[in-house]
């Protein structure tokens, strides 16, 4: 079995793996310097093969690219960035917001930084955006909610699919660096792909629907909205996790957009349900309105 995982290095180096295999191999990669080196060299070889293929891009592309980069700021180098204010209250494996490609989504990007997960130290993984709007709008803001910093995040989608953000990052794990463009398996991806993931759906008032996945083994839940109608002005949708006793605890805010996929904050391992309520901008400590949806988790 351990032989099997090393043998994936070639396929991995050319992206010939599915999401689950990718996640599994990247976990292995974090602990295997030999595979890291091999992937690096095989990747270089594969890209050498690519260099013989050239095609002049269409004329307008350059202008579109140059226009788009004006709205997006390059990431600062790793190690120079201040810690998030919310780091000390963030839960482990926090806040990644990209998700697996879906046929109906095209452009999308994560708003807000991802935190370190339990397995590896990740230096500031950030995901690039489609930059329909300035970068500032897309960055996750920190909102104080009753003394607790809640991170606001969401994923905007365009026409067809969501980008699984290919942030090329240096992941420093136990002294080794994995240099290639590694896609950190997002919480959402992991939850949805988890063997023990359960799924519940609901329609939403005002049209639209939501799906919630929960993985007990990962202890997290993910919600995906479709055609969610915009909240009233000055209001925001807030997510809640319901415990066995029926109490609700804030699990974060939904960002703007009709179609979002968001990993709920907090431990969803034993949660009985997931709720959505309309709250004042910034959220509330407890729901101030009747939840517009309460999904019972199986």
């Amino acid at each position, binding site marked *: 079995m351990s032989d099997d995982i090393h043998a994936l290095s070639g396929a991995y180096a050319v992206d010939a793996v599915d999401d689950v295999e990718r996640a599994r191999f990247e976990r292995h990669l974090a602990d295997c310097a030999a595979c890291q080196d091999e992937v690096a060299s095989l990747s270089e070889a594969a890209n050498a*093969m690519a*260099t013989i*293929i*050239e095609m002049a891009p269409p004329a307008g592309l350059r202008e579109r690219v140059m226009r788009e980069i004006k709205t997006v700021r*390059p990431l600062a180098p790793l190690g120079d960035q201040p810690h998030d204010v919310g780091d000390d209250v963030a839960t482990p494996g926090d806040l990644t917001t990209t998700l697996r490609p879906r*046929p109906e989504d095209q452009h999308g990007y994560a708003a807000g930084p991802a935190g370190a997960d339990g397995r590896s130290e990740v230096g500031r993984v950030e995901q690039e955006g489609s930059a329909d709007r300035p970068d500032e709008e897309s960055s996750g803001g920190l909102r104080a909610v009753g003394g607790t910093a809640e991170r606001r995040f969401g994923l905007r989608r365009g026409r067809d699919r969501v980008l699984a953000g290919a942030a090329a990052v240096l992941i420093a794990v136990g002294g080794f660096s994995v240099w290639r463009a590694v896609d950190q398996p997002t919480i959402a991806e992991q939850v949805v792909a988890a063997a023990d993931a359960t799924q519940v759906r609901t329609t939403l008032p005002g049209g639209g629907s939501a799906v919630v996945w929960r993985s007990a083994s990962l202890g997290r839940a993910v919600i995906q909205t479709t055609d969610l109608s915009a909240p009233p002005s000055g209001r925001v949708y807030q997510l809640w996790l319901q415990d066995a006793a029926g109490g609700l605890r804030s699990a974060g805010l939904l960002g703007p957009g009709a179609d979002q996929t968001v990993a709920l904050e907090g431990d969803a391992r034993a949660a009985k349900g997931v709720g959505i309520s309309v709250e004042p901008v910034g959220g509330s400590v407890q729901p101030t309105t009747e939840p517009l949806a309460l999904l019972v988790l199986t």
Partner: protein
Amino acid sequence: MTQFEVVSSGDDSPDEPTGAPALAELLRQSASGDEDAFGRLYDLVSPRVYGLVRRVVRDPAQSDEVTQEAFLAIWRTSSRFDESRGSALSWMLTIAHRKAVDRVRSAEASRSRDDAYSSREPETTHDATAETVVERLDAERVHRALATLTHAQRRALELAFLSGYTHTEVAALLDVPLGTAKTRIRDGLIRLRDTLGVTT
């Protein structure tokens, strides 16, 4: 850590150096927000980036979008490039390739498996469409290296890397066991690497 980069070819011209150091420097400048540097970078590598994306994605309109996304990602993550770990061009192509593969797989999710296979099935490594292909001077070296692979390895690599199939799909397409597909891909890459002289 060891470092790998393909030994640079002799196609640098004085006016437009495309060697590894020039691209790495432009990436570095881009990382500090230098849009002119990024424009020069685009001019130097966009045919290869677009060529690869187009080869994988096929559809011109989607290739256009994916290439744009790739360059945006290159711009945005330019500070993440570490030249001690590989060449700038390879770094950029890796980003582009991943996006291309994601796009082609998601676009297919709603189409039938057979349709998807036939639409992505390539004929040769060369892209023989009318709009192609600028033969680069260093292409000859790569062609020679590819010629040292077995036909089976070359085919597996084409399907995996250039057509964006998973190794599981490659095994199905070639009607071979899963392990065989994995091995061919890996062995093919190793052969390519060693023949091209990917150096430490």
